[in-house]
């Protein structure tokens, strides 16, 4: 504040007075303008800081007004509905340009993939140096498959490409809706359209995953209005996206679903995997309620579309 008053005073040095005019440069005005500029600059500094942070973070730059979600009988927020993400993170969690997609000579603009901004907080996934080679390899091999040897069954190819269950959090930001079914039992179901994958969230459940599974072992609890889901026991073969971002069998995901309007849930996931990353990292984006009249999840049973790709080489040739 004092600094700014001094700067206003500098503007009023005798050499400059003719330009600014004697009326502005009275001692009272200098003090008053100094104070006003001080407040204004403080606002700008705070604003810029928030904006920069918001830009870096993935949480929506546009905040929602305070909201209290409708309740179910148990007093917890009602998250029931058909929801969908509208980010393009399934292509790449990081910033990505629009691209032709595979085989433009066959697919033309049909095969094109849209550009998208990173949903990773801080903009970068904190890979360990030694883990980067595998991501590159994944990307190069994302459309290759070889299932002739059981032991190498999962070595090549994006699991989505092969129509495998996507795991968490990928299932959330695939370009398909999912239905949350929350009733009065200790279980919440999430049913995804992509390959009919489902997962049960066991509320306040103590027991650990009995074995690894594609959609993992989800245990939930309420933190105020936020449904917090702890996901462990995921098969190591799932990926985060088509760009080859991946994890190990040590993956631990903590998801947060927060109702912020009748039509939006804020989704956030903290991803931890000490074998692949240097620290836990976060992604976040809103989920939108599907509002079309009579909208319902439909089938996306992609298995038949992968049979030639995976098993065609074993078919009988005439």
């Amino acid at each position, binding site marked *: 504040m004092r600094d700014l008053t001094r700067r206003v005073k500098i503007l009023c040095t005798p050499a400059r007075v003719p330009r600014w005019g004697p009326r502005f440069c009275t001692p009272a005005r200098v003090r008053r303008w100094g104070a006003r500029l001080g407040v204004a600059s403080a606002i700008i500094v705070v604003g810029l800081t928030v904006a920069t942070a918001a830009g870096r973070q993935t949480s929506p730059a546009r905040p929602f007004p305070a909201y209290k979600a409708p309740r179910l009988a148990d007093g917890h927020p009602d998250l029931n509905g058909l929801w969908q993400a509208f980010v393009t993170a399934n292509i790449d969690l990081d910033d990505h340009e629009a691209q032709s997609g595979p085989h433009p000579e066959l697919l033309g603009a049909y095969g094109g993939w849209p550009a998208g901004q990173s949903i990773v907080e801080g903009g970068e996934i904190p890979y360990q140096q030694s883990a980067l080679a595998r991501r590159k390899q994944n990307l190069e091999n994302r459309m290759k498959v070889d299932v002739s040897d059981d032991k190498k069954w999962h070595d090549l190819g994006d699991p989505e490409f092969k129509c495998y269950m996507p795991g968490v959090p990928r299932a959330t930001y695939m370009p398909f809706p999912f239905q949350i*079914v929350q009733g*009065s039992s200790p279980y919440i*179901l999430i049913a995804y359209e992509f390959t009919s994958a489902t997962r049960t969230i066991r509320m306040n459940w103590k027991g650990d995953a009995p*074995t690894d599974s594609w959609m993992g072992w989800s245990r939930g609890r309420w933190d105020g209005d936020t449904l917090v889901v702890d996901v462990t026991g995921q098969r190591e073969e799932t990926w985060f996206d088509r760009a080859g971002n991946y994890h190990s069998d040590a993956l631990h995901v903590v998801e947060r679903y927060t109702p912020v309007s009748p039509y939006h849930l804020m989704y956030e996931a903290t991803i931890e995997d000490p074998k692949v990353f240097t620290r836990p990292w976060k992604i976040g984006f809103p989920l939108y309620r599907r509002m079309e009249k009579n909208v319902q999840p439909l089938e996306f049973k992609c298995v*038949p579309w992968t049979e030639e790709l995976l*098993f065609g080489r074993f*078919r009988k040739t005439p």
Partner: protein
Amino acid sequence: MRYRLRTSMVVLVMLLVALGAVAEQAPPAKPASPAPPASAVPSKPAPKRPAPPKAWTPTRTPWGDPDLQGVWNDATSTPLQRPSARAGKDVLSDEEANEFQQELAFDLTRDRRDGGPEVDVNRAYNDHWMDARRLKITADRRTSLIVDPADGRIPPLVPLSPERQKARAARADANARFNAGMPYSPEEMSLPVRCIIRTDSPPYLPTIYNNDFQIFQSPGFVVIAPEMIHSARIIPLDGRPHLGKNLRQWLGDTRGRFDGGTLVIETTNFRTDDGVVFQGANPATYRITERLTRVAPDTISYEFTVEDPTTWTRPWTALIPWTRIDPAEQMYEYACHEDNFDIVHLLSGARTREKNGEGKR
């Protein structure tokens, strides 16, 4: 490993079940008497059923629907159709029931030592995955799951159109190749082997394992999640219309309503692929209605009625009790396609056999 074992067994069992059903249903070459027209059949038969259990007022969800939430299991050794040895006897006495159960269990169990080392080991293979509940008959001591018609048998088939006869013959050929270890292609294998649909396709019938169903409810919805294959059947209760007729699905499109304490569900919009509709009925004329009633704290009565005037001479109904499993016993993910090693083994095995000159006709 586990997935492969599961898959192999399901391959075998599904196939046997499918073949059995086809064989049993083969239309007589010359029907003794013409089939009655479908319209002559009462659409709402009053089948003879065992006496209902003692009155029990079903619990309700906080929003007022009958509460069906929980994990339920439908395993039983009671056959869909009444065996000829029990013809004319729909419900057994305690003593007869005991004998019936032992007979069935003897045939079904894999824990036997009477076949010589090779046979016994083959039988024991994978016994770990089998559901022990499959060795017991239903608590109401019936001799068939079918309650209507009264003889407990699937009604005779009406003569099939030449196209459908051809399709059935093609299916039988593909099954024969499969059984001989000589399948031509993934597409000619059955939908369960291909991991497209399994026991999640209605009507729900017991099998050797993974007979669990978890029911979820939310205001306006009932959701049935069958263990195999990890799909969720989301049933809207708000009276909305079915999907348009050009939008067909592997598992159809389901709508439901509560009629007193009974959830009544109707499913339409099935795809026309071979194997999608129950027992090779005609998707154009097939109708299925399922009724779920919680008749006791630990029991749901699951009843289905199927009708198709271009397939069966009359509608028929089966009743299968679902038993609530201990809540501490959870239903786990059933993956299939993700590790479907078997489909590769079966196809590559066939190609190797061909190379070795086996299987030539």
